[in-house]
């Protein structure tokens, strides 16, 4: 596979690198893990097979071998040679076929994967690019792990499942210094809108809205933070830490955005307004397990279909 144009911020991602946070190496990994998992199910891959996370403007890719590929997540008006291709469906390609992403229709991050996976560099049990080290880097020539002799263009392996990327209510669980917010601040947090500012990236989403305050300013020492952590900055604004969250931080924390809604949030771009909905930890766990069930069912039905074909 040849990358004719790199696009912006294209990178290899999987579920991240766990086990090295004590060395300062963050977990990283995909922003929208729901779309990522779906991609690998459609392709019949291992659940954690690395994909290319694509932002708009996206790359231009030429296939050099026959293979099957699929795209999930954002919709960037993708076309193969000159025919339009859909999300959540597996396609076969021949050497010389070219895929391009013409314009941004919906969402922010698209996942592109091939059946069998890419042969990309593994570092500390993950192929995700560590943004602090810019390693492993995303390069111009990518080999595929498995060889396919010939392919059929259309396949039946697809799925009608798309997370709702227009949902602007983001569920969070209060924790840490939440109890120390002033009464007014709690009211603002739960009842007003927050704008995703342009200084938002894979590391964190900076929000702008009514400034929030704690009853007393506390000098905190650095402690663990992770994907989903909501931090309160000294100027009263919020940051939601995203996939490339650093391992530790010293700002007060108000709680965390639930896993499911991190995927949703990943597909919302800057200048979008969001609202916070407070839920309990127990409820968050329930939602996580329910999502796992749904996803497991999709995987099962796809496996079944693959067997039948």
């Amino acid at each position, binding site marked *: 596979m040849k990358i004719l144009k790199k696009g912006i911020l294209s990178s290899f991602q999987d579920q991240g690198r766990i086990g090295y946070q*004590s060395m300062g190496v963050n977990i990283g990994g995909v922003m929208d893990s729901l779309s990522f998992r779906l991609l690998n199910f459609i392709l019949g891959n291992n659940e954690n097979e690395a994909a290319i996370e694509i932002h708009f403007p996206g790359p231009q890719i030429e296939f050099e071998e026959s293979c099957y590929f699929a795209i999930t997540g954002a919709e960037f008006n993708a076309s193969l040679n000159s025919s339009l291709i859909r999300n959540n469906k597996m396609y076969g390609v021949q050497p010389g076929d070219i895929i391009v992403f013409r314009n941004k229709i919906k969402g922010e991050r698209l996942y592109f994967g091939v059946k069998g996976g890419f042969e990309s560099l593994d570092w500390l049990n993950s192929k995700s690019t560590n943004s602090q080290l810019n390693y492993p880097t995303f390069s111009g020539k990518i080999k595929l792990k498995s060889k396919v002799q010939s392919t059929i263009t259309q396949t039946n392996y697809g799925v009608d499942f798309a997370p709702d990327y227009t949902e602007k209510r983001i569920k969070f669980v209060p924790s840490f210094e939440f109890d120390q917010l002033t009464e007014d601040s709690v009211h603002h947090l739960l009842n007003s809108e927050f704008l995703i500012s342009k200084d938002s990236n894979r590391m964190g989403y900076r929000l702008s809205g009514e400034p929030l305050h704690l009853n007393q300013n506390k000098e905190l020492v650095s402690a663990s933070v992770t994907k989903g952590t909501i931090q309160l900055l000294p100027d009263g604004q919020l940051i939601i830490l995203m996939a490339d969250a650093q391992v530790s931080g010293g700002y007060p924390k108000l709680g965390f955005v639930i896993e499911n809604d991190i995927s949703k949030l990943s597909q919302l771009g800057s200048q979008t307004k969001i609202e916070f909905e407070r839920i309990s*930890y127990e409820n968050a766990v329930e939602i*996580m397990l329910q999502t796992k069930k749904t996803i497991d069912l999709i995987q099962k039905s796809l496996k079944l279909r693959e067997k039948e074909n």
Partner: protein
Amino acid sequence: MQNIFTLSILSEKAISVFLNKEIGLESHHEVLCLKNALETQNWPWLLEIVPSYNSLSIFVDVSFYFSQNSLVTFFDDWLSKYSFTENPTNIGNELAKEIPVKYAGVDLSFVSNYCQLSIDEVINVHSSSIYTVAMVGFLPGFPYLLGMDERLFVPRRSSPRLKVAKGSVGIGGFQTGIYPSESPGGWQIIGTTDLELFDLEHLSYLTIGDKVKLKPI
């Protein structure tokens, strides 16, 4: 009586345990003992334990919920049965690792003014302590050093620099540390080292519990 620990839920799959104790070598040592004790449990769902000054975070995978309902309940129970001051294990190297530092940072004179110490005194005081690596975080290989003389406590810069050079030695409040790579940062920079603090193969040169001596060059 104040509880010995406080639990805060960090995510669906992580929980933080804070020791309600003053930050210092003693509480840090207890954090490391607790980490060891947790690790010897061999829980199949345990992914990683990340210690910091007076707290640690426990990361689990979803299979935790196949047998348990709540991280809070589970760890509240477990920690209530754990005796916090026992298990005195030695963690890290007792032998101090020496790091050569050229004390000529951009904020050296600010620190000297703020602390009302001469530049030579700042260098002297900063390089005479034996530090303990409390945690590695912020950047791959960034050591947070515990044990700085309180005469050198200087607040962070009110607005962080966009670029702090690789190898910079800085002071942020009661903490001192070294930037292993170029990064934005708000600490007061008093020196630099040429020592590589992180590489892809060996990872962090300094690990939690290590003793560190800074040697002026």
